């Protein structure tokens, strides 16, 4: 029933976009009716350039996310386990985190031009913090009694990280990865759009520059679908990995 | 008769099946009475109370207040819920919690203030006006909820297992507080509980309910003296007789529903889910 209503809502959106240009409220030059966007989408799908762009965006997203997740987890565990490090780094993290990643755009352009590295720089910077913060929450959540027990049985640092810290932190890590995955897509598309690095974003910029309005809408819709797919996928992975985890933890809102 | 329940029936319509929580309930409460409702756990007590309060619409039958049919929360009725932690606004101070319903009544400011002060001191909370409710103990929070009801000056006060979640000693204090307020204010109280001792100790009458689907099993007059106290009343012979009698009734009610007991438990569970 709920899914049906949801489909009804989506159908309503499509019908609205189809009808709006005919009412004269908006010009069809600015908002083409649904069927023209759909045929533009069909044209894109038949174009190998579209698939190249999609692949480029995907690669930048995946590599950037992988780097950010790896770095975030390692940094989080080191900061969380080495005594005193957390207190020293807290203010710096609070300083650096709110710096908008787009501030780095000019720097990226100067250093890498329109290469993929430009995109990666923005993606990694923005998503790294999402992972790091969640890992730190996770490390903080480790039950001191469990850790003491592990110590008293003579478990070494590695074993404690492997068997005590990691299982506790995993739900938080997954939350961080999910948030980072969404942010990484935003920044990948942004970098392509503004800098012109290859990908869906630059294809949108080209469509806009050449006044191919239906194509632009079609591509925007694709980025939205990509975002939905990434959100759903991340949630699925999260659920699957945490199936064994009896306690369903509330997400820490940061 | 101030409050009248006639042929009340409530069926929850689930996705695939119906659950009959209340089959046929008829009883009345005179003005100024203190009546307790007891029944086996999951017998639809809360459903009944919500129907009386106008928070739920009965499937059939009527609730009459002062001869008028209740079709939504009526004026002059206040409810004290079991979940004190969730019935007080956590973002308001104790004072604002008590005052909010009065603001709705469009009373002038000075009058509201004095009513709030009176209500809070009548429940023994003279100096916690500015605290947030969650800063208080469970028993004190329930006192705030009672003060809010008292300040509202209702004709009828409905209480849904209000002391089920507080510890035993606090509970005894709160029971005495209710008897005390009832005497002072002359308000009509319908008090739902699963605790037989509490029902006998508090009530002038105890209405014993059957298992779900609920009907009235017995209407017991509590012929204990009006002045009651925790020590002597509970130790008396008559108290023991009454409580034993009601206990037996409830055990019988449970037994009668045993053939379908797992069903009944599931039903109540489902009923609660539907309720949410």
């Amino acid at each position: 029933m709920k899914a049906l209503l949801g489909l009804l809502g989506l159908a309503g959106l499509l019908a609205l976009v189809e009808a709006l240009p005919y009412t004269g409220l908006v010009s069809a030059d600015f908002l083409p009716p649904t069927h023209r966007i759909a045929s533009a989408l069909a044209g894109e799908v038949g174009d190998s350039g579209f698939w190249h762009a999609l692949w480029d965006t995907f690669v930048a997203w995946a590599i950037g996310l992988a780097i950010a997740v790896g770095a975030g987890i390692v940094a989080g565990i080191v900061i969380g386990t080495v005594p005193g490090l957390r207190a020293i780094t807290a203010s710096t993290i609070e300083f650096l985190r709110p710096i908008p990643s787009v501030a780095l755009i000019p720097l990226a352009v100067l250093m890498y031009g329109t290469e993929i590295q430009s995109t990666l720089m923005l993606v990694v910077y923005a998503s790294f913090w999402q992972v790091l913060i969640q890992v730190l929450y996770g490390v903080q959540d480790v039950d001191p009694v469990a850790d003491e027990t592990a110590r008293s049985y003579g478990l070494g640092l590695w074993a404690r990280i492997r068997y005590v810290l990691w299982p506790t932190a995993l739900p938080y890590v997954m939350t961080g990865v999910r948030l980072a995955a969404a942010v990484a897509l935003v920044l990948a598309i942004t970098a392509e759009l503004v800098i012109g690095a290859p990908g869906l974003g630059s294809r949108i910029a080209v469509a806009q520059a050449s006044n191919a309005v239906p194509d632009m809408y079609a591509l925007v819709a694709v980025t939205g679908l990509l975002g939905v797919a990434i959100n759903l996928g991340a949630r699925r992975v999260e659920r699957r990995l945490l199936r064994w985890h009896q306690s369903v933890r509330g997400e820490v809102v940061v | 008769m101030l409050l009248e329940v006639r042929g009340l029936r409530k069926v929850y319509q689930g996705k695939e099946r119906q659950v009959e929580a209340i089959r046929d309930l008829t009883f009345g409460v005179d003005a100024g009475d203190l009546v307790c409702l007891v029944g086996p756990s999951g017998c639809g007590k809360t459903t009944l109370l919500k129907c009386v309060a106008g928070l739920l619409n009965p499937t059939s039958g009527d609730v009459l207040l002062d001869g008028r049919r209740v079709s939504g929360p009526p004026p002059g009725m206040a409810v004290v819920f079991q979940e004190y932690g969730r019935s007080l606004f956590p973002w308001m101070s104790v004072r604002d919690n008590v005052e909010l319903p009065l603001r709705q009544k469009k009373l002038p400011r000075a009058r509201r203030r004095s009513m709030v002060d009176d209500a809070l001191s009548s429940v023994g909370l003279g100096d916690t006006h500015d605290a947030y409710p969650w800063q208080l103990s469970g028993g004190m929070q329930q006192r705030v909820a009672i003060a809010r009801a008292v300040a509202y000056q209702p004709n009828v006060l409905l209480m849904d297992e209000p002391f089920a979640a507080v510890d035993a000693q606090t509970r005894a204090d709160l029971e005495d507080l209710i008897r005390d307020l009832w005497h002072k204010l002359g308000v009509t109280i319908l008090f739902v509980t699963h605790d037989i001792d509490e029902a006998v100790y508090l009530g002038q009458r105890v209405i014993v309910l059957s298992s779900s689907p609920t009907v009235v099993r017995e209407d017991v007059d509590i012929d204990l003296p009006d002045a009651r106290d925790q020590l002597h009343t509970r130790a008396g012979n008559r108290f023991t007789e009454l409580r034993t009698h009601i206990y037996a009734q409830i055990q019988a009610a449970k037994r009668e529903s045993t053939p379908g007991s797992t069903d009944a438990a599931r039903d109540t569970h489902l009923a609660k889910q539907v309720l949410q």
Partner: protein
Amino acid sequence: MRIVLRIVLAVALPAVLFTVWWLATAGSTNFYLPPLREILRIFPDVWTGERLRTDVLPSLLRLAGGYTLAVVAGIALGVLVGGNRTVRAVLEPVLEFFRAIPPPVLVPVIMLFAGIGDTMKVVVIAAGCVWPILLNTVEGVRAVDSVLADTCRSYRITGPARLRHLVLRGASPQIAAGMRQALSIGIILMVISEMFAASNGLGFAIVQFQRGFAIPDMWSGILLLGLIGLVLSLLFRLVESRALAWYHGLRRVQRGS
């Protein structure tokens, strides 16, 4: 003593990092990495006076306008959608779709309608910020406690009073979380929309520096953006911790038990 220790801890690492940056770039001849001393020296020249009025202020005003618009619209729509189960079921997939669209792609779309003036930027910022606020409000309104809702009904608290005392206050922690997400999106969109098409503003100025290879000026702009991000997030936290003092207190009590 403890306060001193905390201040030392807070300041130590940033001080070290700045010193390292300072020393490492002190004799830098790398064109792209000018000495920090140089960046800091020109910072006041670049960003005070004329440019404060022509670039920094317009940017901040656009951000304020768009963000305010998004907050008002997001909360209003969120209350409407969240209050009705059927409306929620119909709109949820649509809203999730709009939220998943990376906000910067809105810039070329909205340019079609609103040209490249201030309106475009304000609308872009509003259109990007509104989704997290809207969806969080929906979630917050939906999750209003059922016992509290019954309490309101039985005391006949309805209409505007119910909205003000129950719905909005009950949803406020969620709304604040949405507003915090929206703030960082807003800063991003402020910069992007000015980099894309503008004749003034922070984003515009920084791109001009970069294209004109005025590297120390560009670095000073990056520093300024970082500072703005930091100050706004601190301001937000300050306001939030005041407005939601009850919520944080309640959470502490719940965690403690």
